[in-house]
């Protein structure tokens, strides 16, 4: 009887790999520099494993693509708080990879911040990678008005200017966070968990596999508490220019983290804009920019359109793919694209497995008429994928939201991908083919033109835009 297990990439990988090694699974290729997504076991011939972004693991197990999975309890609870009837069984605390979710606020707000904020009439803004847990918390705290900003990452840099509170991960007992944040409520203690699909748990005999884990857990629990450092924690960064909200004349500029940092830096240099500590070796998300009255923060490009639409940032450098993703969800969003920055070029494409006998989306649709189950469309771009499936009358389909490494989803866990690609090589290597190109994307500068700005601020923004435009002209 085949048993399928979903294993995590990222912060839990090393300790999970250690556990599975002690359990004698003989999974070759599951290590830190893994480029393999599909793994077989020497010990259990019926067992197959696939490597996912940690956030994807509970979703994959819940929808029944996998019998077992390993991921942090934080992501399990994030799923269950919103979808309590998900077919998930929490099997066992594995004891490693621990951390705590804290609701944090700015130190300047003080310890009583929570009581004060609960009764105030204005909207409480909460930023988090865990939007479902954040919403549940806000409901339980009985905030009168609140809004949740779901993020792809970097929540700790949002308060106090762009959010009142953030739900972020930290170490047990942490009393201060970077950027002058204070933990207000310890929301959830978590560690790595073994989970199972409810159906599989009730019907499949997985005893041998489970026993092999159980027998080898002791070693791991001996290490408990020794490495509770979540992956995304930034090294200590002192609170700088974060005291209170930004002055109303200050231009708030969002710069991308991740691999768009280098080309962004080059563009800024060419535009004569000086910037320190970007990209930062210490993980600082508030680089100092050499322009008066301008404040820069590093956030995820995915999060920028929503943040600019909300007026939390005045200018942001993101990708047109994320702008479009945002506009498909919110067609009346006020954001505007000001400049094409001519770097970060990718194509957004529709992808299927190579041996599928279709060459375009019409062929795929035809195939859908003949089959009896829904298409599963996996994508990081949920709204782009949804619109694409809808516009092309794909019939009955489901969107599977993912957090990366989408190419690993085909063919077992999805039928169609909406994915970005530069050269198409990774796709080809994974035995996939492109059947449609949706659009081309490059980095762009966006803003919210509807805001009421002071003359000073307008002048500052104009000057930044013109410097960048001039720099681009010289390319």
């Amino acid at each position, binding site marked *: 009887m085949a048993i399928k297990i979903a294993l995590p990439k990222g912060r839990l990988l090393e300790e999970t790999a250690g556990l599975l090694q002690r359990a004698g699974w003989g999974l070759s290729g599951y290590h830190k520099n893994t480029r393999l997504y599909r793994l077989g076991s020497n010990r259990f011939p019926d067992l197959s494993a696939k490597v996912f972004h940690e956030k994807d693991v509970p979703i994959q197990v819940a929808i029944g693509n996998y019998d077992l999975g390993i991921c942090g309890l934080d992501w399990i609870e994030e799923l269950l708080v919103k979808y309590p009837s998900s077919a998930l069984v929490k099997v066992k605390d594995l004891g490693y990879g621990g951390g705590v979710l804290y609701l944090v606020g700015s130190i300047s707000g003080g310890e009583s911040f929570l009581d004060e904020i609960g009764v105030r009439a204005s909207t409480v803004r909460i930023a988090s990678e865990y939007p479902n847990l954040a919403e549940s918390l806000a*409901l339980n705290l009985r905030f*009168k008005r609140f*809004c949740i900003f779901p993020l792809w990452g970097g929540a700790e840099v949002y308060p106090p200017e762009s959010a009142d509170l953030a739900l972020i991960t930290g170490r047990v007992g942490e009393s201060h966070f970077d950027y002058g944040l204070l933990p207000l409520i310890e929301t959830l203690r978590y560690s790595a968990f073994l989970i199972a699909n409810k159906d599989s748990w009730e019907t499949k005999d997985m005893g041998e596999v489970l026993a092999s884990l159980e027998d080898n857990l002791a070693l791991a629990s001996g290490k408990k508490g020794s490495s509770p450092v979540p992956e995304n924690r930034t090294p200590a960064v002192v609170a700088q220019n974060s005291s209170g909200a930004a002055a109303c004349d200050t231009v708030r500029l969002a710069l991308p983290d991740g691999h768009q940092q280098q080309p962004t830096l080059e563009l800024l240099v060419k535009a004569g804009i000086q910037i320190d500590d970007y990209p930062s070796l210490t993980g600082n998300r508030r680089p100092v920019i050499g322009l008066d009255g301008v404040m820069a923060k590093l956030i995820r490009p995915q999060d920028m359109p929503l943040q600019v639409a909300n007026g939390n940032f005045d200018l942001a450098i993101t990708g047109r793919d994320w702008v479009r993703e945002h506009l498909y969800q919110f067609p009346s969003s006020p954001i505007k694209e000001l400049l094409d920055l001519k770097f970060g070029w990718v194509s957004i494409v529709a992808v299927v497995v190579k041996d599928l006998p279709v060459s375009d989306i019409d062929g795929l649709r035809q195939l859908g008429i003949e089959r009896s189950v829904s298409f599963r469309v996996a994508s990081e771009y949920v709204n782009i994928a949804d619109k694409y499936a809808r516009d092309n009358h794909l019939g009955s389909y489901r969107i599977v939201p993912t957090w990366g490494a989408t190419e690993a989803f085909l063919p077992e866990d999805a039928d169609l991908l909406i994915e970005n690609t530069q050269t198409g090589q990774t796709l080809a290597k994974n035995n996939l083919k492109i059947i449609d190109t949706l659009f081309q994307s490059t980095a762009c500068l966006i803003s919210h033109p509807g805001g009421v700005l002071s003359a000073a601020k307008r002048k500052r923004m104009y000057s930044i835009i013109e410097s960048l435009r001039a720099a681009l002209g010289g390319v």
Partner: protein
Amino acid sequence: MRVQRCKGSRDLTPDQMLRFRFVEKAFRRCCLKWGYEEVKTPVLEYLNLFTSTGTLTPGMLSKVYSFLDWDGWSGQRLVLRPDGTIPLARLYIDNIADNKKLARLFYTSNIFRFEETGQETRERWQGGVELIGVSSSLADVELILLALEVLAKMGIKGVELKLSHAGLVRSLLSELGLSDREQTMIFDQILDGDSEAFARIRAERPDLGRAMVSLLDLEGRSPGFLKNLRSLLGRSVPELVPIVDDFISVVELLDAVGCDYQIDITSGKGFEYYTGVIFQLFYDGDKIGGGGRYDALIPLMGGGDIPASGFALYFDCLMNLVEPAVLAGPLEQRILVKVEREAVKKGLDITASLRDAGYIVELWLESQQPSNLRWMLDVRSEVPAFVIHDSLKIKDIELETAGEVLTLLGESNGDKDSPA
């Protein structure tokens, strides 16, 4: 692929729709006769209407269908209304509060709540009544009597009325020396149906006075022991006296009109917004409706210091309880008309006249089997122009003019029995 109905949703077939309209009609008629005016609120509301303390409990809020609107980049969420009272309070504040204080309002609407298994319906129909602008025992009793009258009009007998008092429960919790937040939390647990919540408090607080314990066990059928309780508590917890008095005065009025009830202090499950008497209606163990006083809701929503109370009846339950005999009523006159191709004009003219005369007239469309109809009318191009088949008396009658047809049917109007 088979077309699927959304999990947890339901269709109403013609038969169920008959039941639905019967229930709705009985409800609307009673409300109108007691001087209530009908309103409707939108299906979509902002989530924040329901989030603050004093509205819905977190347990209920975790079951609302909420989503971002098209302009939801602000983080503003919408919900499919999970409750009828709060939107109605908003309607009152928006549209009525300025003009007149007292308002008797009612609505029929669907509400939406997630139900995990998908076995039960997630879209529920209810009729709700709200009496806004007055805080008196008589107002509470008016609502109870109206609710019972609606059920009686539907022919539903053996309804049980259970009474509780939110004020008593709250005072009790505040006596325990808990913080506001803890009190709300436990109150929510009780309201969310955690029947163990009370027991846990008792276990944790052995120092609770005997009076408290008897309050928790409060069950009975007369104002007598409420009065005993008042004398017992009057000394140790004087704050409770006005609350018990309020309860007593409702109970005394119910006694005066001969209305049966049962007091069960832990029965007030469901809504955080209640402040006073809570009443629930049961039939054969199932809850079919309920309501209570919610004096703090409109102030909490910024609508000024306006008291209110109300109730809702669950149409989904009531539809199934209506007896077929009650439902049937007098048969409507139904006629099937068969028209020859050459006589279409004549045929359609007479169907129009028959409808004007109050009959239900169906055109024969080749496939239809004439069942459960008393009359069939053939319209021909040649003489005789009209042939009426009476399936009750099993005979055919030949007529020449439309007038003769109407006259004949009119004369037979007395015997409306079904042929079946």
